[in-house]
C-alpha cells in the first residue's frame, strides 16, 4: 500500500521533506502513479547544491570526464523513469513502498547513531554532548536528515542499478556522502596561486578500497582542520600528546580517532602512518564509576602487546607504527567532581607506560574547559611532563561546512542564469533541468528528447524494435556489462563519451534556444537584480574553458576511435528538420526575437548541410558539426555574460564619457591658454636650459599677474631646483620638486600649477589635480566653480582611495605636475603616502605599492598659513573675499527696471551702487506687485558713484552681509573641525617642513577689481542711459562678475563683456524704454535660473535676460563671444516685444 505524501513528510526534516516534495513533483509531471526512489534520485540530482550530486562528483572514477559520466547518469535515470508505466495524473502521487521502506531504514540508521542525531540537536537545544547519550529513545518520531535519506535511497537496488549503468558505484557515493564535501568545492577555488598547504584532504579513492562499512557514525564534517592540527602536535618531539581543549574538543577527538581507525591518516606525516588507536574511554568510565578494573586491565595488556610489537619492529628497521591511546574526556576521570584515589593509580599506570614507550605511544584526550584540566593538574602537578601533554585549543564544532553546501545556491543568487552557472560538478542534468527555475520549457524539452532519442537510436548497434523499451537500454546495458567486467572499458566508455557528447550538444542547443525564446524576460529581470561584479569574472572563464574542452576533445576522440563505424546521415537530418520546423514556429511566435534566433538557427542548420555536401557522409561529421554549432551558439548566445558585460561596459562607457568630458574641459581651457600665450609657452620650451627662471616667470606672470611675489618665488624655486637636479643627473638622486602654496587665492594657485605643467611638461594635461577636501563635501550645485571642478570625488575616484587614484595617474603620466589642494584636509592614507613620498621619492598607494615620482613637481596647497598672521591682517573689512566668490553661482543676469516713486529720499540719489537685491529677483516670476515692494524695502543704503563711495559702501555693506555669510563661514569651519584636527595641524607642520619651498599667496584683490568694474559699469551706463538714472547692481551679480574676472584666462575678457554685452543692453533698454530719473535700473541675478538653461518665458519686469557672463567668459573665446552675443540679441528682441505691457505698469503713479 502506498503511503500518502503527508505521512511520509512527517518522518523527514525540512530539508529532506523538500527533497521529497521535489520527487513527488517529478512523479506528477511524468504522470506516474507512485513516487519511487527513482523519482527521489531524479529530484535529488536536480536540487541546486545537491548533496547527492556533490557526492557523485567526488565518487566518480577519474577515468572519465565528469560531465560525460553525469550525462550518462542523467540519461539512465531518465530512461528508467521512462520505463515506469504512466497513468492518469494524480495530484500527489503517493510514496511507493520501496521509498517508504528507505525512509524507515534511514530512520533506523539514525537511531542507531545517536551521536550524529544529537550533534544536530546540540545546536538547536544547546545540549551538551556529554549528557546526550541517554536520551535517544525519548525521541518518538525521528526526523530523517537529508544525508540519511539519501543514503537509504542509494540502498534501493533499482537506484544502485541506475547508478551502476552510469559507471558509479553506489557504495562510493555513499562513502562520499558521509565525507566532508569541502574537498571538492574548495578545489575549484584554491587555484594554482595558493597551493593547498596542508594536504589533509582525504582521498576517497583510497578509502573506497578499504571497503564500505556503512553506516558510519557522525562527525564527518569539519575534522580536517582539527585533525591536521592534532597531527601537527603528534609529530613534535616533546609535548606530543595532544589534549584537546574546548567545548567542541570531544567532537574533534572523536573525529580524529574515527578517521584513524578508518585508516585515513593523510593528515599525519609519514612517520606517523599506521598508527593504531586504542580507546580506553569506556573502560576508564566504568573503572571510575563502578570500580570495574578488569576490563581496563585487559585493554592495557592488549595495548602493551601491541606496543611491544611496535618497538620490536622498530628495532628491525621497519619504521612506522605506534599506538594512540585515547583516554577520552578528562571529565570521565572525575567522579562527582572529585578525583578519586583510584584515578591516581590509573594516571600512574599511564605515566609508566609513557616512560617506557615514549617513542611509540601517544596519549590523546579531550577536555571541555581549561578549568577542569586545571583541577586535574592540581592533583597531578607533573602530568604535563609525564604524559607529554600539549594543550591544543579546539575552537570549531562541526557543520562549519554547511557553507560549502550552500555555496552553489548562493552563487546562484548572483548569477542571472542560475542553471547555467557551472555548479561544482560542472554539469546540468536534463532531468533536473525541468525542476530548475530557468530551464527549457515543455516544448523545447520535447524536441530535445526527440533528438536525443534519435541520436541514441543511431548510436545503438542493435536494431531497434521498440523505441521505448528496447533501444536505450540496449546501449546502457552494454555499457553496464562492460563496466562490471572491467574489460574493454575504454572502448565502450568512449562510445558513451561520444554519445554523451552528442546528447550534450543537443541539450545545450535546446537549452539555448529555449532560453533565448522563452526566458528572455527572465533574463532581463535578473539582470536588473544586483549582480555581483564577480559574476562575469567567475562565469566567463568557465565558459571559455568548457567550450575549449568540448571543441578540442571530442573531435579527436571521435576520429581516433571510430573510423569503422557505419556512416549515418540521420542525425543531421533530424536535427535539421527539427530546426527548420522550429524556426518557422519561431517566426510566428516571437517576432522581436525571431530575427536574432533565426540567424542562429540558420547558422545551425546551415553548417551541417555544408559539411555533408562537402565530405563523404561519415559518422564523425555530425559530432564535429555539433561542436561547431555549439561554438556558434555559445559565441552568439552566451547572453548572460554578454548582457552583464554590456552592463559593465555601459558603466565603463559612462565613466569614460565622464573622463572624456573632463578631458575636453581641460583641453578647452588649455586651448584658451594656448591661444593667449602660445608664443611664450612654445618659445620657453627651448629656452629652458638658459633662461629657465625668466621664461617660467614670464609665463606665470602672464597667467597670474596679480601674484607677483608668489610667481617670483615659484619660478625661482623651480628653476633652482631643476638646475641642482640637473647637475647630478645620472646619479640616483632626488628629482622631485615639492612646493607648497599657502594662503588664499585658490584660482591663482591652480593657474600657476597648470601653467607650470605647461611650461615644464608641454601641456596642461600634465596636471594631476586632486582636491583633498572634496571627498566629504558635495560640490555646490550651479556654482561657477563647478564647471571646472568636474573632479567631484565620486566621478573621479569611484571607489578608489585618493592615494590609489594619484598613484594610478602618476603611472599614466610619469612627468607631470601633481596639484593637491587643501592638503591640510587630507585623510590619513594620503598623509601617509605623502609623508613617504617626500622622504623616499616614492609614492605608495593604499596597498603599499610604490611608484617613483622622480621628475615630478608636487604642489600642495593649503589655505592655512603658519601663524595665520597674514590671513588675519588681510581680514580687515572686505566686501568681497574669496570664500564668497567661490560660492558664486552661475545664474542669469537680468536688467530690471523699477520706479522710485514712493521713496523721496531716494529720488535725489543718482549714480551706481552695489547693493543687495535678493528677494527681488527671486520673486520676479511670482508676483509683480510684490516685486516693487521688496525692491524698495530691500534697498537699505545708498552710495554715490566713485571710488570714495565704494570705500564707504564697503564698510556699510558689511552690516548687510552677515546673514548670508555666516552660513558660509560655518560651512567652511565644519570641514576644518574634524575630531582629530589638532593632529592634522601637527602633521601639516611636519610635512611642510620637508617641502622644498613654501610660497605664500596674497589674497586676490577682489575689492579693487570690484571698484574697477563698478566704475566701468557706471561709465557704460552713463554713456548710454544718462547720469540721472540710478543703477543698482546686485551683490550677487557683482560676485559673479568678480568670479568671472578671477577665472578668466584672458585679460580684458570682463572689460569686453562689459562693453559689448552690458553696454549694448543698456543702450537697448534706453532705446525701448525711456528711462528717466524716476526709474531705477537694477542688475540682478536671476536666482535659480542657471545659465545655459535658457529661460525665454521670463515676463513682467524682466527686460533683459543677459547670458550670464562668468561661465560665458570662462568658456568662450572672443570669437564665440561675439556669436553668442548675436544669439542673445535675437532673444532679447523677443523679450522686448512684451515691453508695452510693462510700460503701462511702470508708468503707474
Amino acid at each position: 500500500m502506498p503511503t500518502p505524501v503527508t505521512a511520509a513528510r512527517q518522518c523527514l526534516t525540512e530539508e529532506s521533506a523538500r527533497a521529497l516534495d521535489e520527487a513527488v513533483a517529478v512523479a506528477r509531471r511524468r504522470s506516474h502513479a507512485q513516487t519511487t526512489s527513482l523519482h527521489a534520485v531524479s529530484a535529488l540530482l536536480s536540487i541546486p547544491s545537491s548533496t547527492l550530486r556533490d557526492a557523485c562528483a567526488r565518487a566518480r572514477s577519474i577515468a572519465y570526464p565528469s560531465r560525460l559520466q553525469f550525462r550518462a547518469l542523467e540519461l539512465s535515470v531518465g530512461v528508467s523513469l521512462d520505463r515506469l508505466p504512466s497513468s492518469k495524473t494524480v495530484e500527489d502521487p503517493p510514496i511507493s513502498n520501496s521509498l517508504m521502506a528507505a525512509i524507515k531504514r534511514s530512520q533506523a540508521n539514525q537511531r542507531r547513531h545517536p551521536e550524529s542525531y544529537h550533534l544536530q540537536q546540540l545546536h538547536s537545544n544547546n545540549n551538551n554532548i556529554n549528557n546526550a547519550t541517554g536520551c535517544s529513545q525519548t525521541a518518538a518520531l525521528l526526523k530523517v536528515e537529508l544525508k540519511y535519506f539519501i543514503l537509504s535511497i542509494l540502498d534501493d537496488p533499482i537506484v544502485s542499478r541506475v547508478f551502476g549503468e552510469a559507471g558509479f558505484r553506489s557504495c562510493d557515493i555513499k562513502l562520499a556522502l558521509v565525507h566532508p564535501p569541502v574537498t571538492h568545492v574548495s578545489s575549484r577555488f584554491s587555484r594554482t596561486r595558493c597551493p593547498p598547504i596542508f594536504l589533509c584532504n582525504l582521498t576517497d579513492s583510497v578509502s573506497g578500497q578499504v571497503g564500505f562499512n556503512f553506516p558510519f557514525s557522525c562527525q564527518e564534517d569539519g575534522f580536517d582542520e582539527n585533525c591536521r592540527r592534532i597531527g601537527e602536535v603528534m609529530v613534535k618531539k616533546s609535548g606530543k600528546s595532544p589534549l584537546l581543549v574546548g567545548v567542541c574538543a570531544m567532537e574533534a577527538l572523536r573525529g580524529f580517532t574515527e578517521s584513524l581507525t578508518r585508516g585515513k591518516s593523510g593528515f599525519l606525516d609519514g612517520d606517523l602512518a599506521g598508527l593504531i588507536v586504542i580507546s580506553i574511554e569506556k573502560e576508564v568510565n566504568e573503572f571510575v564509576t563502578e570500580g570495574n578494573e578488569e576490563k581496563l586491565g585487559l585493554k592495557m595488556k592488549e595495548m602493551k602487546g601491541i606496543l611491544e610489537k611496535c618497538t620490536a619492529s622498530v628495532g628491525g628497521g621497519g619504521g612506522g607504527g605506534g599506538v594512540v591511546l585515547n583516554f577520552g574526556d578528562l571529565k570521565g576521570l572525575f567522579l562527582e567532581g572529585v578525583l578519586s584515589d583510584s584515578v591516581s593509580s590509573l594516571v600512574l599506570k599511564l605515566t609508566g607506560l609513557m616512560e617506557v614507550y615514549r617513542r611509540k605511544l601517544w596519549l590523546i584526550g579531550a577536555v571541555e574547559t581549561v578549568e577542569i584540566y586545571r583541577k586535574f593538574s592540581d592533583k597531578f602537578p607533573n602530568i604535563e611532563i609525564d604524559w607529554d601533554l600539549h594543550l591544543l585549543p579546539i575552537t570549531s564544532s562541526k557543520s562549519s561546512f554547511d557553507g560549502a553546501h550552500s555555496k552553489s545556491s548562493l552563487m546562484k543568487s548572483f548569477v542571472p542564469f542560475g542553471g547555467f552557472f557551472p555548479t561544482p560538478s560542472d554539469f546540468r542534468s536534463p532531468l533536473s533541468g525541468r525542476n530548475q527555475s530557468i530551464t527549457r520549457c515543455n516544448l523545447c524539452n520535447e524536441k530535445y528528447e526527440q533528438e536525443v532519442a534519435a541520436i541514441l537510436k543511431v548510436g545503438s548497434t542493435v536494431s531497434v524494435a521498440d523505441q521505448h523499451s528496447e533501444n536505450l537500454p540496449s546501449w546502457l546495458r552494454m555499457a553496464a556489462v562492460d563496466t562490471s567486467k572491467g574489460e574493454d572499458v575504454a572502448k565502450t566508455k568512449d562510445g558513451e563519451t561520444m554519445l554523451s557528447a552528442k546528447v550534450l550538444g543537443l541539450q545545450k542547443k535546446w537549452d539555448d534556444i529555449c532560453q533565448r525564446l522563452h526566458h528572455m524576460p527572465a533574463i532581463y529581470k535578473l539582470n536588473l537584480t544586483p549582480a555581483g561584479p564577480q559574476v562575469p569574472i567567475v562565469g566567463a572563464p568557465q565558459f571559455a574553458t568548457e567550450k575549449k574542452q568540448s571543441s578540442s576533445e571530442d573531435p579527436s576522440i571521435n576520429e581516433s576511435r571510430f573510423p569503422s563505424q557505419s556512416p549515418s546521415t540521420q542525425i543531421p537530418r533530424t536535427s535539421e528538420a527539427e530546426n527548420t520546423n522550429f524556426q518557422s514556429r519561431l517566426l510566428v511566435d516571437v517576432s522581436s526575437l525571431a530575427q536574432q534566433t533565426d540567424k542562429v538557427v540558420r547558422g545551425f542548420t546551415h553548417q551541417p548541410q555544408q559539411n555533408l555536401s562537402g565530405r563523404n557522409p561519415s559518422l564523425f561529421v555530425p559530432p564535429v558539426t555539433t561542436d561547431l554549432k555549439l561554438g556558434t551558439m555559445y559565441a552568439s548566445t552566451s547572453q548572460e555574460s554578454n548582457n552583464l558585460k554590456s552592463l559593465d561596459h555601459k558603466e565603463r562607457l559612462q565613466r569614460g564619457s565622464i573622463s572624456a568630458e573632463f578631458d575636453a574641459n581641460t583641453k578647452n581651457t588649455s586651448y584658451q591658454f594656448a591661444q593667449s600665450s602660445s608664443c611664450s609657452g612654445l618659445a620657453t620650451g627651448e629656452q629652458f636650459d638658459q633662461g629657465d627662471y625668466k621664461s617660467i616667470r614670464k609665463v606665470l606672470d602672464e597667467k597670474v599677474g596679480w601674484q607677483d611675489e608668489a610667481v617670483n618665488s615659484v619660478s625661482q624655486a623651480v628653476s633652482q631646483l631643476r638646475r641642482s637636479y640637473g647637475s647630478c643627473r645620472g646619479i640616483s638622486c632626488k628629482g622631485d620638486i615639492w612646493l607648497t602654496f599657502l594662503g588664499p587665492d585658490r584660482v591663482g594657485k591652480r593657474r600657476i600649477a597648470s601653467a607650470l605643467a605647461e611650461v615644464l611638461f608641454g601641456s596642461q594635461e600634465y596636471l594631476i589635480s586632486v582636491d583633498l577636501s572634496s571627498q566629504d563635501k558635495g560640490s555646490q550645485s550651479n556654482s561657477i566653480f563647478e564647471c571646472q571642478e568636474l573632479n567631484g570625488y565620486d566621478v573621479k575616484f569611484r571607489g578608489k582611495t585618493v592615494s590609489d587614484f594619484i598613484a594610478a595617474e602618476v603611472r599614466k603620466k610619469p612627468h607631470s605636475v601633481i596639484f593637491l589642494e587643501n592638503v591640510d584636509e587630507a585623510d590619513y592614507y594620503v598623509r601617509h603616502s605623502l609623508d613617504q613620498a617626500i622622504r623616499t621619492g616614492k609614492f605608495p598607494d593604499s596597498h603599499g605599492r610604490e611608484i617613483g615620482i622622480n621628475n615630478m613637481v608636487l604642489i600642495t596647497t593649503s589655505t592655512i598659513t603658519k601663524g595665520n598672521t597674514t590671513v588675519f591682517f588681510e581680514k580687515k573689512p572686505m566686501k568681497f573675499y574669496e570664500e564668497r566668490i567661490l560660492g558664486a553661482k552661475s545664474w542669469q543676469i537680468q536688467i530690471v527696471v523699477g520706479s522710485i516713486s514712493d521713496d523721496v529720499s531716494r529720488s535725489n540719489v543718482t549714480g551706481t551702487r552695489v547693493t543687495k537685491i535678493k528677494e527681488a529677483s527671486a520673486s520676479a516670476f511670482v508676483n509683480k506687485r510684490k516685486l516693487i515692494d521688496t525692491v524698495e524695502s530691500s534697498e537699505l543704503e545708498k552710495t554715490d558713484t566713485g571710488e570714495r563711495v565704494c570705500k564707504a559702501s564697503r564698510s556699510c555693506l558689511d552690516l548687510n552681509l552677515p546673514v548670508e555669510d555666516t552660513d558660509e563661514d560655518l560651512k567652511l569651519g565644519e570641514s576644518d573641525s574634524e575630531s582629530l584636527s589638532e593632529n592634522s595641524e601637527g602633521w601639516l607642520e611636519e610635512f611642510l617642513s620637508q617641502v622644498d619651498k613654501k610660497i605664500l599667496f596674497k589674497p586676490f584683490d577682489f575689492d579693487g577689481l570690484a571698484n574697477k568694474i563698478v566704475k566701468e559699469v557706471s561709465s557704460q551706463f552713463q554713456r548710454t542711459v544718462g547720469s540721472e538714472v540710478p543703477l543698482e547692481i546686485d551683490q550677487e551679480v557683482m560676485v559673479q562678475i568678480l568670479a568671472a574676472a578671477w577665472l578668466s584666462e584672458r585679460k580684458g575678457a570682463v572689460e569686453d563683456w562689459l562693453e559689448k554685452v552690458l553696454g549694448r543692453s543698456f543702450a537697448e533698454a534706453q532705446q525701448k524704454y525711456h528711462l528717466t530719473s524716476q526709474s531705477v535700473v537694477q542688475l540682478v541675478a536671476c536666482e535659480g535660473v542657471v545659465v545655459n538653461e535658457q529661460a525665454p518665458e521670463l515676463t513682467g519686469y524682466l527686460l533683459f535676460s543677459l547670458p550670464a557672463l562668468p561661465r560665458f567668459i570662462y568658456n568662450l573665446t572672443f570669437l564665440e563671444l561675439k556669436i553668442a552675443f548675436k544669439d542673445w540679441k535675437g532673444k532679447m528682441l523677443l523679450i522686448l516685444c512684451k515691453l508695452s505691457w510693462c510700460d503701462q505698469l511702470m508708468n503707474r503713479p
Partner: protein
Amino acid sequence: MGNVLLEALNVRVVGSGEKILVLAHGFGTDQSAWQRIFPLFTPYYRIILFDLVCAGSVNPDYFDFRRYTTLDAYVDDLLNILDALGVNRCAYVGHSFSAMVGILASIRRPELFSKLILIGASPRFLNDKDYHGGFDQGEIEKVFSAMEANYEAWVNGFAPLAVGADVPTVVREFSRTLFNMRPDISLFVCRTVFNSDLRGILGLVRVPCCIVQTAKDVSVPASVAEYLRNHLGGRTTIEILRTEGHLPHLSAPALLAPVLRRALSR
C-alpha cells in the same frame, strides 16, 4: 612564503616607535577600518596593518575554502605575518573576529604578545545553557539564508545595525567593505565564526588583556565582556565606551583612541 603572504594580505608597517602594535580588523572590514586610529599611534609605535584573508581587499583566490574552516588557519596567517616581519613581541589590537584570532594566537605563542586589546570580542556568539552569546541558532540560520538570498540587501540592512551609532559615513564605509567581500566567502567566514567556541580555552590565555566594549553592541551583549574577564587567564580589564555599535574604531575613534592609549601604556 613570507613575502608572498605579506603581499597577499597587504601587510603594511607604519610608524616610527620602538614598540610594535598590531591592528587586526574584524569581519566585514579591512585594514582601512583603522585609518582613523593608527595615525594617532604612529609616533609611538611601529604599527602593523594587514587584511584578513577574507577581506574584500584580498584576492579571493587566496581564500582556500578547505583551509579556512576554523579560526586556526587565521591564527597561522597572523603568526606567519609576525614571523615574516621578525616580530618577537608586540601588542595586539583585535576587533571582533580578530579578537578571537588574537586570543588563539596568544595561547599558541604567549611570548609573542605583550598585551591583547579585544574590541567587541566574544568567545561564542551563540547562546548556550548558562551563557548568553546574543544569538540563537535559529536566528543565525535566518541570517545565513538572508545572506544567501540577497547579499546586498543583507549588507544594507546589517551595516547600520552593526555600526549602531548614527554616523552615515561610517555606515557607508562599513557597507562598502562588507560588500567588497565575496558573498560566498563572507557566508563561509560567518559560519566559521558562529561555529567557533572559545569558551573552554579562555583560561589558557596568559597575556594581559583589555576588553573594549561599547555600551550597546548588537553582536556582543554586555554580559559577554564580563564572561571574558572572568574566564580569561591573564590579568584582564574592561573598558566600556560611551557609544553604541560594534565598530567603535570607525564610529567613535576619538573615544577609542584614548582608551587604547591607556590600555597600551599599562
